[in-house]
């Protein structure tokens, strides 16, 4: 780990190790968006009439909307007629089959990413659903989950097999009219994951979805819906990567979580979409709407996110605290290096009595990265004794980057207690020199300091993923000191 003369500002090239593409025959819709494309998607997925109508309604609403201008991010206007809205590996377009029928090249891709889909190869006790471009390629551990009554399948499959559940909950947390990207997603979403945990069941293993964008000029619009019935518990993790491409690609997902009485969902994200090169060329636009609803009393939803990828991240995983005594949590590490931009945070909406929320946000800016925390804590009239604690910390590496904090607090109940703490710190030359004088290289010193800074969030992640997140952060920071 020897390093030559270093200054914090000197940026060197870093490699994105997931940037390969897979040569595979695909079937796709023509680029552009209109009602015919939506009908095509719906037909390909053999969807019931109500869902097509739902999509069309969302589309018609979307055409009246404009992309939000308020985020503190800059990018050229997106031409939505340039994007391909449906791409599928050719022999998969009729929907998921058993793993034995999946193209070996696809399985190879996931092997390269460290996601073994073959159950015989499994290392972790984690059930995985993998989404390749627009289609789910296989869900592992189905049988074992089935014995407990846990449904974990691709969204398309859920539409076929569990239409009542889908119809009841789809759009109930994030309505199609919620915002520009949510409306777009509702119109064109192609796949995603579906989870239902029945009453009183503690899901016996971590559930995980792995998203991969492969094709060029495609958008990925997945839809995830997780329902935890009374007294149940589930922990869910998503990971994402994409090839290195010069063009920007759009990813606009919607995730909806629902907990009924005494239920708990823990949702963890390790987001590593291609961030673009060191000059800011290429990379994923990650415009995502994630929201959970604690419908039941004593229920709990916890979001943990480690955001290291994407050229632009725009996401605010929130919790609507409806049930009395319900709990919402948001733990976030967002890193921007080179020319990455992130505008991310959370929304905690307190409806019920004695509802509690905790926000811990750790922003890290390096290179020319711009990192904004944007959060809303809203306590409604009926939310007696609601409590919120927010902590928003920013860490700067070098002096070309920026950190911004936009906390919004609205309190309509006098018995509520809302606390907000914020700090900004910088990894200084003197800290680096101190470490070097103790035989530790500059890069190791930065990793050590950043990991120490993120500890609070990492300890929320399932163990194996906490280790992965630490490594990922180290890779993403490579070259932040030259």
């Amino acid at each position, binding site marked *: 780990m020897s390093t030559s003369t270093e200054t914090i500002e000197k940026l060197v090239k870093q490699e994105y190790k997931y940037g390969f593409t897979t040569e595979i025959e695909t079937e796709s819709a023509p680029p552009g968006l209109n009602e015919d494309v939506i009908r095509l998607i719906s037909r390909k997925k053999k969807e019931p009439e109500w869902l097509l109508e739902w999509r069309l309604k969302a589309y018609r609403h979307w055409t009246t909307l404009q992309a939000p201008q308020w985020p503190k991010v800059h990018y050229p206007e997106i031409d939505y007629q340039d994007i391909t809205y449906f791409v599928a590996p050719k022999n998969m377009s009729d929907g998921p089959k058993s793993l034995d029928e999946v193209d070996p090249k696809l399985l190879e891709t996931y092997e390269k990413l460290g996601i073994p889909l073959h159950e015989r190869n499994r290392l972790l006790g984690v059930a995985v659903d993998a989404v390749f471009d627009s289609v789910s390629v296989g869900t592992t551990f189905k049988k074992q989950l089935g014995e407990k009554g846990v449904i974990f399948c691709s969204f398309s499959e859920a539409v076929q097999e569990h239409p009542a559940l889908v119809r009841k909950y789809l759009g109930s947390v994030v309505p199609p009219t919620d915002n520009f990207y949510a409306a777009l997603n509702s119109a064109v979403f192609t796949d995603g994951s579906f989870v239902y945990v029945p009453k009183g069941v503690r899901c016996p293993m971590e559930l995980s979805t792995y998203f991969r964008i492969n094709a060029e000029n495609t958008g990925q619009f997945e839809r995830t819906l997780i329902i935890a019935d009374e007294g149940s518990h589930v922990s869910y993790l998503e990971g994402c990567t994409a090839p290195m491409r010069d063009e920007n690609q759009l990813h606009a997902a919607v995730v909806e979580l629902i907990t009924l009485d005494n239920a708990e969902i823990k949702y963890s994200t390790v987001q590593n979409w291609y961030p673009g090169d060191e000059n800011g060329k290429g990379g994923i636009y990650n415009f995502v709407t994630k929201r959970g609803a604690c419908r039941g009393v004593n229920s709990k939803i916890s979001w943990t996110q480690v955001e290291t990828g994407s050229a632009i991240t725009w996401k605010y995983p929130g919790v609507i605290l409806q049930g009395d005594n319900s709990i919402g949590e948001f733990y976030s590490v967002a890193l921007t290096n080179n020319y990455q931009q992130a505008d991310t945070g959370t929304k905690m909406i307190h409806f019920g009595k004695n509802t509690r929320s905790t926000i811990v946000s750790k922003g890290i800016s390096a290179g020319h990265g711009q990192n904004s925390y944007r959060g809303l804590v809203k306590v409604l009239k009926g939310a007696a004794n609601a409590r919120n604690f927010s902590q928003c910390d920013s860490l700067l590496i070098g002096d070309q980057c920026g950190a911004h904090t936009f906390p919004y607090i609205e309190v309509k109940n006098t018995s509520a207690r809302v606390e907000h703490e914020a700090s900004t710190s910088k990894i200084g030359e003197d800290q680096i020199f101190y470490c070097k*004088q*103790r*035989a530790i290289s500059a890069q190791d010193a930065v990793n050590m300091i950043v990991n*120490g800074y993120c*500890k609070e969030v990492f300890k929320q992640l399932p163990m194996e993923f906490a280790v992965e997140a630490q490594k990922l952060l180290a890779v993403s920071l490579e070259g932040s000191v030259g």
Partner: protein
Amino acid sequence: MTQPILAIQNLSAGVEGRQILKGINLVIRPGEVHAVMGPNGSGKSTLASILAGRDGYNITGGEVIYCGKDLLELDPEERAREGLFLAFQYPVEIPGVNSTYFLKAAYNEIRRHRGQPELDAMEFLTFVKERMKILNVPEDFLKRPVNHGFSGGEKKRNEIFQMAVLEPKLAILDETDSGLDIDALKIVALGVNKLKRPDNAQLVITHYQRLLNFIVPDFVHVLYDGRIVRSGGKELALELEEKGYELIVHRAAVPA
């Protein structure tokens, strides 16, 4: 004669065009304790910084040989791995980084450099606790983040503790006595004395003579305006205390 640990020859250096060191000569051999004394602005801390490899100084002349190697060619972390340790005048706080973790990383870097196997967490903890006993360092030093929230005295003690763990060949103490009350001073000095060995050396940089009541140097050098104007035994420190820098410097300046 044994090879010197440090040999500074005619070292000149400055910052932004301003000359601070104007030809320093100094030889330190194994088993020796040297004290460099001088008034504010004489170049004491510059000397310490240059030896440790801090950025921002222009070396305009001379050379520094450390254990037979050209010291100025080495990166700061390489110097540290070669056994050069600087006890900072202002130890730096590193919030969030646990002291044990930090020390283990430093210690294992040095072991790796020497081709020795790294210690795992348990082995390191056993080792480090034994070092703590020698210096009477409170156990909570290990649990706290590096220097974060430490008092001035605690920070200086922590420097000496790190020195005890990393076992340097050459320890440079940059005004370790500044800002310490007499009790803290005794603790620091006691630590330094305990760590003295026939195969290592110490360079103690100080403004006041009082530290030298507790650390007994073999040689004392007076640094003034970027030059060592007088060298002598430990009695020189007492003379300095008695007469002050001005008089000694003045006498030194008069040609013999």
